[in-house]
């Protein structure tokens, strides 16, 4: 199976946000691989290996990112985990929106014809959650979002995808080629069944470590560099950021002296009971 995985670098979500000139100041940002994209890389690797002999690849995983030269660090991290090759489409973060990203990935998909596009369900920076859906729309491919289970069925012609919904787990069958976005639990020990790894095999929880051998091997793996112009993408933003503001600070709470007072306030002021 040939899989294309999209990855994005995001500022460390634990860092405090600072504003400067109505924009988020990212000059001191600590960049890292978006967590859900790391899960997508792990899922792609599990789909393309026999866990008993992971050194022998059963498919090909290409990681793709849009961004400046520094993004190479995050691509290299995915290669060190075990992805086979990478593509970086040169761009500045401020020149991108979800639509440009979706249209760019669409071009790459049409060029490289993967069987599956795996993506994180959203990026931890703006939590947009729209590139996967837009991409499936542009390609006219079936999509399954928020996957927590993926099983290869019908001899590799389709996927059974589990999505956690309020009532339980919804199972969807999608024909390949397809676009699938993954949720947190896709990296649970038995979330992926690829028909080669024994079904009772349990992976360690979470994405794999980049081993030292993996890191050394990643140095030799190719990273193709492209521009938006080479892919004939019109860099016209559909979303324009007008300004960015921090939410107002929360007002301090109050202490009540009796249960009666609490009930009274909940009933008369908050009007919740």
């Amino acid at each position, binding site marked *: 199976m040939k899989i294309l995985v999209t990855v994005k670098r995001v500022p460390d979500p634990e860092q405090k946000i600072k504003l400067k000139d109505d924009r988020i100041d990212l000059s001191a940002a600590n960049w890292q691989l978006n967590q859900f994209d790391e899960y997508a890389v792990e899922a792609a690797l599990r789909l393309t290996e026999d866990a008993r002999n992971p050194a022998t690849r059963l498919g090909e995983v290409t990681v793709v990112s849009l961004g400046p030269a520094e993004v190479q660090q995050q691509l290299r991290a995915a290669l060190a985990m075990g992805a086979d090759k990478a593509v970086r489409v040169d761009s500045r973060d401020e020149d991108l929106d979800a639509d440009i990203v979706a249209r760019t990935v669409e071009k790459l998909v049409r060029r490289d014809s993967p069987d599956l596009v795996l993506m994180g369900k959203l990026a931890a920076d703006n939590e947009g959650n729209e590139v996967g859906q837009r991409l499936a729309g542009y390609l006219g491919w079936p999509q399954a979002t928020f996957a927590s289970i993926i099983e290869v069925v019908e001899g590799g012609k389709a996927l059974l995808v589990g999505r956690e919904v309020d009532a339980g787990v919804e199972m969807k069958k999608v024909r390949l080629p397809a676009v699938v976005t993954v949720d947190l639990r896709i990296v649970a020990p038995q979330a992926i069944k690829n028909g080669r790894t024994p079904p009772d095999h349990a992976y360690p929880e979470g994405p794999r*470590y980049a081993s030292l051998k993996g890191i050394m091997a990643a140095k030799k793996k190719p990273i193709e560099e492209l521009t938006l112009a080479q892919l004939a993408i019109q860099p016209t933003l559909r979303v324009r950021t007008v300004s960015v503001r921090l939410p107002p600070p929360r007002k301090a709470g109050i202490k009540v002296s009796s249960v009666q007072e609490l009930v009274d306030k909940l009933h008369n002021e908050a009007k919740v009971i």
Partner: protein
Amino acid sequence: MPYRGVDYFALDDLLTEEERLVRATFRRFVDEEVLPHIGHHFRQGTFPMDLPRKLGALGALGSFLQGYGCPGLNAVAYGLMMQELERGDSGVRSFASVQGALVMYPIYAYGSDEQKDRWLPAMARGEVIGCFGLTEPDFGSNPGGMRTTAERHGSTFVLHGEKRWITSGGIADVALIWARTQPEGEVRGFLVERGTPGFSTRDIEGKFSLRASVTSELILQECVVPESAMLPGARGLRAPLSCLSQARFGICFGVLGAAMACYEEALSYCCERKQFSRPLAGHQLVQEKLVGMLEEITKGQLLAWRLGRLKEAGRLRPPQISLCKRNNVRIALQCARTARDLLGANGITDEYQAGRHMCNLESVFTYEGTDHIHTLVVGEDITGHSAFD
């Protein structure tokens, strides 16, 4: 807030992609595999026996070697790995130092092809644990006085003597024993397997320090080993000393990890805990201490980084390692003591890390060349006068 490292001077710009990835792997490994359990091991006085194979799977053991299942890391990447491991615990870093620099390295550098094939891949996987027997009860800083002997009897050697303060001794499958041959009187290295008649170990109890690491005595009484157990290329004291240079290089980076753990812990504690009208961190005397820690860590980072680049360029001289070991261990120990101070009474319990690092670093101050000895190495280098004897 997860640990993100200490980098006040944007030193990350001096690192390659590969070096940052290596650090990231071991940063996460220490968060997930070491820190949740290390306090328990320290309290119980046990070594985490699950770690050798886990470290082996990542390629951490003998990682600066090339071939035999080892990835061939450059010096700075290796150093950063040691830094992260020691952020977990000096005992864990000590295990990795001994396995890689003190046992695998001499086998790699001085061993026969048979010895390399037999030991290196298994040691790299963490399936076989090694220890390094140089120090004796009466000869620490002065290994040249060693009394352990290896008497030749035909195609065998009979080893006799005692080694002490041996990291991993009690859990080792193979001990590299340094002994003087009789009658020649030349220092040679012998690979002695656990179970060899006449070879036994006894763990040292009652340690205040490196409690999550095994420290042992090795006893050799009429211990017969074949000539094939001897490292053919290691002749004279120069061989074990070359191993120590490798290990000390790792310490130069390693102790910074312990210092960073203490600094981070003290910083977050002081920002949260309020005394009088404000957080501890708002008091001038506290700020002075926190700044002092950060300042020394930053200088130590630059020193270690430069040491690594000199090593990669083949320009490193042992007195430079001595200067860096001396400085970085001193400042790490001082950081740990300061952190313990800032944590107040909480600093004396194992609910916080500073006390554990402080106790551990007392050993690191003394082992692999004491602070005094490294001072005299540099002293001799700059004056031309040896002050040892």
